[in-house]
């Protein structure tokens, strides 16, 4: 019984370690310019006071598709200030079981503030 419990704990630790290590955030941020502010939002994370646009979708890629480009139109001419890509265990799992056909896309981005 004790050995079973020990094995269960070890398995759980391994699963949690896998889950945590497979979740990560990569952020690309411009050194120049100012992120578009959000005077109404009350976020409490890295993006506090920033107007964040979020994309959370699953895309289908054909075997002949080399890449996938998402076109955004809400940054006007200012361009992007910050872009974040998040990888999760769920996303990795989805990609694995569909042999790469389905991909989870979780992206956040903040436009540059309009200047006058």
């Amino acid at each position, binding site marked *: 019984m004790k050995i079973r419990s020990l094995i269960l704990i070890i398995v759980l630790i391994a699963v949690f370690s896998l889950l945590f290590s497979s979740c990560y955030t990569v952020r690309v941020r411009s050194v120049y310019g*100012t992120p578009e*502010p959000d*005077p*109404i939002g*009350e976020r*409490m994370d890295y993006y506090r*006071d920033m107007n964040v646009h979020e994309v959370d979708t699953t895309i289908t890629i054909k075997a002949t598709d080399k890449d996938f480009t998402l076109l955004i139109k809400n940054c006007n001419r200012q361009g992007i200030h910050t872009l974040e890509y998040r990888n999760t265990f769920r996303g990795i799992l989805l990609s694995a079981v569909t042999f790469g056909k389905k991909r989870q896309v979780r992206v956040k981005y903040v436009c540059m*503030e309009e200047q*006058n």
Partner: protein
Amino acid sequence: MAITTTFDKETWDTLHNNGPFPLKKLHITQLEGSTNMPSKFDRYKDAATEVQRLIGIAASQNEGFRAYGARWSLSYIAHQKEHMHYNRKMNLHIPVLPENMEAGSLYKAENLFFFECGNTIKRISEVLFSHGKSLKTSGASNGQTIAGCISTGVHGSALDVGAVQDYVVGINLIIGDQPGDIVYLERSSRPALNKGFADTINSRIIRDDDLFNAALVGLGAFGFIHGVAIEAENLFLLKRYVRKIDKNIALQLADTMDFTNSSFKIPGETSTVGKPLIPYHYKVFMNPYIDDQQYVVELMYKKPYSTAYPDPFPVIETSIYRDLIYLLVRISEKFPQSIPWFIKKLEKSILPDVDEETLGTLYETFWDAPYQGPAFACSVGVDHKDASKAYQLLEAMTRKEGPIPGIFAMRFVKQTEATLGFTKFPITCMLEIDGVLWKKSEKLLSLREYGTKMIETLQANHIPFTIHWGKNSDWAFPGLVNYMFGNKATEWKQQRNSLLSPKMQKVFSNQFLKDLQLTT
């Protein structure tokens, strides 16, 4: 036409979560687009008309009105419970041309720039960079708006420059909702821009040294700051050094500012006779909970600008889990004695790396400071000659009454001419403790109580002091403003009363001013 969107709100908070505070209406004004209104002057005047309309609404309802920008102040100086106006979208830059200069002005047209209130320090620095210019100083970061900076006295640690307000040469104020209620203030002793310029922004010029100096650090009480004229200087580089030195030497430098005769010198930063040079910037970091015989110090030396220098930005930045810090703070509320331990553990994340050296512009050196979660900061200004004494007293008080989750630092600023500028001493030592916001518990005093203890400690030891307007304190402490500023506080109120009608004095008041007894 500039458009204002008004939101019904219940609360408002600072960037660093020092509230929440009650609020009825939040107004956000968006400038007319340049496609429909190409002239910047027209867009600027159009925005002024819109702000006057909003002021008129507040006045007609016998309510208050207050502008805010990046909400970086940790005190409640920016808060108004009835009408708050978000001005960050009002961010025009209007070029100053030689024909805009007042005849006989001592300023050079090429160094003067006019910015609308909502421009941030970062944006202004970028505009100046494109003209080969730089701000003379900034705060430790760059997210504040120019109007917020001067209203609260934001400072860096530039020994020969002063605070942000000290390079402002003109202030455009909207002081009411009537025609003629837009004024452009300058010092009579140092005129900069002429009537022609004032006319183009629909303003009447008032040149008066006393009024200008009072309005300079105006605490949001002299009307709506619509724009400011600032004096920039040629681009320069800052060579930054971080060292760990004997604490007695670090404190002796603070007390004397005698860098030239100090035993501490940085190779290469010496005169032709081998004496240490006076730095542009000097900062000392102190952990109050360890008896370290050495302090980390940061020094910067001004260098001529050149295009070829190593990139001062790191390529990759990481941050520690904020949740971990929150957890530690929650633990410390129940077990305050754990605070010194976790500050020691976090020291590497809090303090700059020892022996670090960088070279960069002011813009690059005092760059973005990402949001790190709820924070507090208490900052007192003392004569630099009292720096070590004041620190030792406040350190002892913090150990006795706390501990609280923060560490101390000292920065040094040249004297300001602003009537209520807290950098009022010949060289002011800004002695500050910054850290993670905590909640009062049975074992830990509140932030306000800590602010009270700071005031009482300095008063009991007869150390003249001021407090940073944008930071945390016990602002309702009896007689505080008179203790700090004496007759200057009366002078400031007189100047305000001379500029604003009684009705507008009420409109541009808030609880912060009432607590300080600065409203009448």
